[in-house]
């Protein structure tokens, strides 16, 4: 890939506030712009568009990250990056000619006086202002002033043109003419341009790509829309383009979603403040705030993926000043979700798809707005096939397809949870192998502890579960590893931390302390020198039990047998494992709609920014003492070779084999009050 003309690399800009503290205007902005490209920045006011433009101009400096233009870092303003300011910024004491001359004479010193004078004349001709050459700006209309500003900017042939709401103050007719002129000039001169605007139509007409910014503070790039219209463009032709209204409603939808999100955040903040004050007066709430620590009830299902929780408890990583943790074990995901919904537990370690399922109400109950501040573990799943079938020649997806073709009954596969992450991965793998999961496979929800027994009793043909369960089945010669998640999506999010958005808003410190402790524990779980200690820890009855110790430790041997080599240990910390990544959520959304469980939400950005909270994740990382690595905005690579671009989820859905594209519709998520139950549920002992 050739180096882009302009590269914005993980830029963060914050401003110190006079009263202490700091306002983060831009967070982790990552953007590459090619030569000759016209890029627009849109977003609500206060989203840092103009801040970003000032950074590009060099008028302002990023706190972290950098901006490279043609390989050189931008450190100060310069005439190669000419700015057309929002309010024209013409010098009122100079005539049109003098204003343009100010740029030409100061910048193009190599040219002779006559050449410079010619340049000034041609610049004025370019925007049709030769007659007004000797007028002062106060004698010009707004449109004419803007044309002078553009002529001044273009007169010195900058390689990058920066426009800050250039047409904001103009009437519609003037604006239309100027847009057309600007477009022609930019195309003729081959100028690369970045424009800040809040006008969706303007952005669509002028841009090759539109960068949509989320609300500030901590504004990020929410979405990038590519505008496919051919150039040269004309307003009417563009508006008649079949894609025009689709793109337009996508942009407007984005802005509306951002507005709703802002209102929602404010409302949550208000509710949290209210509940804090009532908690102070009555002394009872969902999570009981004692004099110092907050008691947090955390639900989980025993498994290898909760190793960080076990580690954190064993090593006392929970900061006792901020947090008193009450772990609650469950046997099935259904019961855990129910407890979460009913407020019997505050937080849970759930499959990665659960926050989306609960928020969208896919489990049949009303929508329950969940958030996820961090990913607890990645990878660690495998598909275990009954040994007789495997020995009958089924060794991979293709042979499974052929085997299924010669059999009437569908393949019966146990999954820990319907619509869970494992089922999504399995379905994706099946479809990729040419097997229709709807017709040829029966999914049986089963508690993970019961899966091995069901396989032994031939009630199921296969199961997909955590590596430890699969390993046990392989050890006892009941099953074989048919596929692992490395062959589907290496590094997929498996377990995430999940709680109600109102709880998160009401107990921010406790949540961050919990995340930080799990992160620190995750680092130790990844450390191979800690493996033995970890096995011992997990062999205790409240986790996996003593039976697990043998199965677990054998897996750490150099050459495990029975296909176990394909199993990759979960990872808890390395490769930014903790990041709460909305792009991954977007993939989950595509799969939920792919299998018909919900329409694809047209307001996906809203839903995802509501649920996925990289901001909380970063704060927790800071608290844990880890460097908060920014999230690069790159496509996710799945093992089937298809790249998933979070900005083009519908195109991705269309490229997938099998089923027709799902309907697209808005899925609003109403604000709901979190139900609270003060009595803890009776803990279930894992079998």
């Amino acid at each position, binding site marked *: 890939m050739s180096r882009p003309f302009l590269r914005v690399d993980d830029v963060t800009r914050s401003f110190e506030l006079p009263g202490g503290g700091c306002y983060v205007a831009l967070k982790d902005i990552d953007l590459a712009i090619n030569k000759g490209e016209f890029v627009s920045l849109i977003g609500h006011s206060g989203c840092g568009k103009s801040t970003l433009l000032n950074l590009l101009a060099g*008028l302002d400096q990023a706190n972290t990250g950098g901006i490279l233009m043609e390989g050189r870092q931008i450190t100060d303003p*310069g005439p190669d990056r000419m700015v057309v300011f929002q309010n024209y910024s013409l010098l009122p004491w100079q005539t049109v000619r003098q204003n343009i001359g100010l740029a030409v004479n*100061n910048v193009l010193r190599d040219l002779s006086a006559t050449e410079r004078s010619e340049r000034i004349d041609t610049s004025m001709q370019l925007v049709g202002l030769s007659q007004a050459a000797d007028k002062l700006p106060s004698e010009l209309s707004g449109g004419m002033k803007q044309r002078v500003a553009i002529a001044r900017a273009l007169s010195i042939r900058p390689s990058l043109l920066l426009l800050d709401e250039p047409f904001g103050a103009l009437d519609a007719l003037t604006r239309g003419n100027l847009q057309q002129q600007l477009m022609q000039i930019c195309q003729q001169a081959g100028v690369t341009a970045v424009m800040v605007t809040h006008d969706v139509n303007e952005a669509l007409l002028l841009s090759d790509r539109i960068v949509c910014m989320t609300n500030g503070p901590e504004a990020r790039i929410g979405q990038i829309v590519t505008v496919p219209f051919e150039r040269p463009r004309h307003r009417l032709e563009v508006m008649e383009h079949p894609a025009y209204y689709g793109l337009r409603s996508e942009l407007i939808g984005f802005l509306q979603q951002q507005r709703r999100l802002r209102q929602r955040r404010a409302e949550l903040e208000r509710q949290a403040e209210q509940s804090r004050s009532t908690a102070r007066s009555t002394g009872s709430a969902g999570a009981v705030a004692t004099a110092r620590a907050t008691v947090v009830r955390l639900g989980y299902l025993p498994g290898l993926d909760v190793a960080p929780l076990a580690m954190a408890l064993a090593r006392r990583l929970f900061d006792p000043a901020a947090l008193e943790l009450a772990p609650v074990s469950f046997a099935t995901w259904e019961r855990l979700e129910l407890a979460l919904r009913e407020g019997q537990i505050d937080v849970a370690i759930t499959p990665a798809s659960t926050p989306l399922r609960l928020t969208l109400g896919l489990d049949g109950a009303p929508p329950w707005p969940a958030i996820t501040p961090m990913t607890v573990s990645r990878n660690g799943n495998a598909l275990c096939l009954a040994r007789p079938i495997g020995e009958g020649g089924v060794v991979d997806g293709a042979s499974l397809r052929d085997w299924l073709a010669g059999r009437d009954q569908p393949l019966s596969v146990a999954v820990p949870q319907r619509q869970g992450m494992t089922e999504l991965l399995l379905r994706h793998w099946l479809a990729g192998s040419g097997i229709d999961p709807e017709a040829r496979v029966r999914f049986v929800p089963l508690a993970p502890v019961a899966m091995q027994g069901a396989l032994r009793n031939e009630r199921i043909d296969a199961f997909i579960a955590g590596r430890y369960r699969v390993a046990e089945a392989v050890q006892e010669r009941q099953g074989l590893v048919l596929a692992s998640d490395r062959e589907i999506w290496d590094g997929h999010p498996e377990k995430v931390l999940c709680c109600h958005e109102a709880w998160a808003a009401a107990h921010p410190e406790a949540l961050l302390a919990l995340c930080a402790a799990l992160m620190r524990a995750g680092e130790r779980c990844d450390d191979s020198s800690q493996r033995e200690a970890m096995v011992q820890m997990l062999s205790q009855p409240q986790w996996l039990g003593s039976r697990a110790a043998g199965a677990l430790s054998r897996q750490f041997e150099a050459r495990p047998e029975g296909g176990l080599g394909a199993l990759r240990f979960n990872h808890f910390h390395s490769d930014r494992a903790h990041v709460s990544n909305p792009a991954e959520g977007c993939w989950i959304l595509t799969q939920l709609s792919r299998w018909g469980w919900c329409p694809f939400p047209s307001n996906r950005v809203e839903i995802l920014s509501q649920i996925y909270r990289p901001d909380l994740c970063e704060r927790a990382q800071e608290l844990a003492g880890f460097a908060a690595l920014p999230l690069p905005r790159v496509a996710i690579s799945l093992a089937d070779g298809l790249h998933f671009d979070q900005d083009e989820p519908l195109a991705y859905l269309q490229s997938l084999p099998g089923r027709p594209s799902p309907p697209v519709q808005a899925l609003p998520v109403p604000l709901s009050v979190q139900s609270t139950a003060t009595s803890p549920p009776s803990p279930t002992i894992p079998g």
Partner: protein
Amino acid sequence: MTPGSLSGQSSRPALRGWLRSPLANQIKAPLVCIGLTLLLWQLLVQFNSAGFPGPVAVIRQTWDPYIINPFFDDGGTSKGLGLQLLISLQRVAVGYSLAAIVGIGAGLAIGLNRFLRRGFDPLIQVLRTVPPLAWLPISLLLFQQADSAAIFVIFITAIWPIIINTAVGINEIPQDYNNVARVLRLSKRNYLIDILMPATAPYVFTGLRIAIGLAWLAIVAAEMLKADGGIGFFIWDAYNAGGDTSTSQIILAIVVIGLVGLALDRLVGAVGTLVAKGGRS
């Protein structure tokens, strides 16, 4: 204002027409109000036995030689009002010019340099409130001579608003213009000529205008205390002479001082508008 304007045909249409002309409209109100003030003064004087002159008496008593011959010179300190004014104006011209030059220079330095601005601000804030006459004794001690002392008092009185306004003007240069200068990488010299000076000019002239008023204020006071000529001296001299027409002379001098002060203010204002044409629109 003009009753009966709806009554149609007037007996004296020419006068009516003139009364409605823009010029008449402008001077009508001041003319009436000043006339009434003078009338009131004249009436009040009628009940005063101490011999305080009314407006008519003032004019009558000073008509010759002060009004009709402002430039007579009988030698010594006995001079016409015009000559006295010239002496005062000369002092103001020197002191005010010095104040303008030093004040704009200091204002530039303070406006461009944060350290100087922070350092000198308290000093300036204190000194600018000192009344002109308080400087006179120090000034006399320093210069030992009435003329230079008066000039110094003018200088020290007039300089503060010039410094302050120049510094504020530099501070208030719109960020947009500075951004333009930064993007174009203007040289220091071009920045000064193309942006700083034109952008600051309106502020500087506001300062100059305030300063000329203060300078005129100071000169009269200084001359009254210690001088051998000038309009302030004229008043004090007339008071000390204690003649029959002294009060009238004093009143005439006051009127002249007022008119000259107004003229000076307007003059600086006009120059300012001329220089800062275009200004910050």
